[in-house]
């Protein structure tokens, strides 16, 4: 652009600086860990149940140490991650497709709406025997449990978001010659993107929780199994070690989602004030 100018660099507010934000986030987490340790040492939190960071952090290190006798931690992580990611991906795709179809086809959506609401309220844990029956005790049943959690979160979010898209935009691209799938991918999904990503961020966490619960119900490996065993021994240090690992993995998945969201949100106006 010929009118482009380079003025002296403006003072970018602290809150917009990346390093500052990262430091702040780390600070919050460290504060949380510190508080936990402090309260544990002060006897406010009974370490029999709550463990303490100075106990479970070394335990985690132990797990990763070569030749650990506590079983292969990488195997456990791999198993749990596989279940989580499969449950997340399948549940998300189903939720997106069904939510989208229901939003576009009014009658279909109305017809199945009550049935889905009812299904959503069924406690998955109670269905464990049915899952075992239908999907066996291996990977499939664990993935299925995750899917039933993720699906509904993504479904309802997609349904509402797609339904609410500005009709003018749809009308415009239809006149411009958009086929059904163009309307989907050019208008409806981008417009619903924010809401969908928000639902993905929730459901990613639930996918982890689902995988762990499924392992808890029955499994031979995975972080859920590790936690269940520790819990059976009232070994709260082991339990929190496992939980912290899961939380870190979840953070990883969440960062990926946020990255994707950030990349696709360049078009959004930034608030100045």
């Amino acid at each position: 652009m010929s009118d482009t100018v380079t003025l002296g660099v403006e003072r970018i507010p602290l809150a917009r600086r990346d390093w500052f934000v990262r430091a702040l986030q780390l600070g919050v987490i460290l504060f949380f860990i510190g508080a936990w340790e402090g309260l544990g040492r002060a006897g406010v939190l009974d370490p029999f149940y709550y463990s303490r960071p100075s106990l479970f952090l070394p335990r985690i290190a132990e797990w990763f140490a070569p030749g650990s006798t506590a079983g292969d931690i990488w195997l456990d992580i791999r198993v749990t991650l596989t279940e989580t990611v499969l449950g997340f991906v399948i549940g998300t795709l189903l939720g997106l497709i069904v939510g989208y179809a229901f939003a576009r086809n009014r009658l279909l959506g109305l017809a199945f709406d009550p049935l889905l609401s009812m299904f959503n309220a069924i406690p998955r844990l109670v269905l464990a025997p049915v899952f075992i029956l239908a999907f066996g005790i291996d990977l499939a049943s664990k993935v299925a449990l995750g899917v039933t959690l993720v699906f509904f979160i993504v479904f309802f979010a997609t349904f509402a978001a797609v339904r609410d898209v500005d009709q003018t935009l749809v009308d415009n691209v239809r006149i411009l010659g958009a086929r059904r799938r163009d309307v989907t991918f050019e208008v409806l999904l981008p417009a619903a993107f924010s809401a969908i990503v928000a639902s993905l961020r929730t459901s990613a966490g639930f996918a982890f929780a689902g995988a762990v619960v499924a392992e808890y119900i029955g499994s031979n490996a995975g972080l859920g199994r590790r936690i269940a065993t520790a819990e059976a021994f009232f070994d709260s240090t082991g339990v929190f070690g496992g939980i912290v690992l899961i939380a870190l993995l979840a953070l990883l998945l969440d960062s990926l989602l946020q990255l994707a969201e950030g990349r696709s949100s360049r078009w959004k106006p930034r608030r100045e004030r």
Partner: protein
Amino acid sequence: MPPSITLRGVSKVYRPPKKPPYLAIDGVDLDVDQGRFVSVVGPSGCGKSTILALVAGLITATSGTITIRDDPVRAVRTDVGFLFQRDALLPWRTVRENVSLALRFRGLGRREIADRVDPWLARVRLAPFADNFPHELSGGMRKRAQLAQSLVVDPSVLLMDEPFSALDVQTRNLMENELLELWGASGKTVLFITHDLEEAIALSDELVVMTAGPGRIKARYPVPLPRPRNVSEVRFAPGFVSLYERAWSDLRDEVLRSYERSLRSAS
């Protein structure tokens, strides 16, 4: 020449939930012959945009029939160019991407798209802003981007809802001349809505004046000005002033009538 757009006894009743139904237009008959440039003027809220939406198939008529090139309008028409009165650019697409949309939908290749989009970006003077997102444009720039977006596929029927109302006089004149040039030899049919009487006369073959809501056709005036025209000069042409004054008094009557009506209903 055969009529390109016809409306026969078209009425539209809006039925907002929990409010009485509202008759927006009432028994509108209109023919726009192939290759003609017809402008519609009328008081604010008289149903101009409604007519355009009906012709494009965006909404359904309550009664009457509408055809485009003898083909009854039953669904959204993709064989027309439509310029919305409201913002209709995709906010998540840059100007260039927005203008390319219709070509992409028609399956054109990258190269070909660029070849056709670039001249349009220049024509609406947005080349330097090709990579801006809509919210990074001014109001007039958004309108111009929309103009390019709907014209880039060279549709043979143009439905335009106040395309130039957000532009300064000069830019508007430039755009108007561009439009006339584009239309000139092309045989395109244009149904053009504006609130600017001067613009309506300067551009069209025929001027349609509507009544205040419920919109009916009050009068139709052929525009006896020679072509080609230069819009910034046409107002000094003979015949312009008399036409302007007739249409103006029509319009004034309607506006005043609806004004009185609204005062009455307020009390």
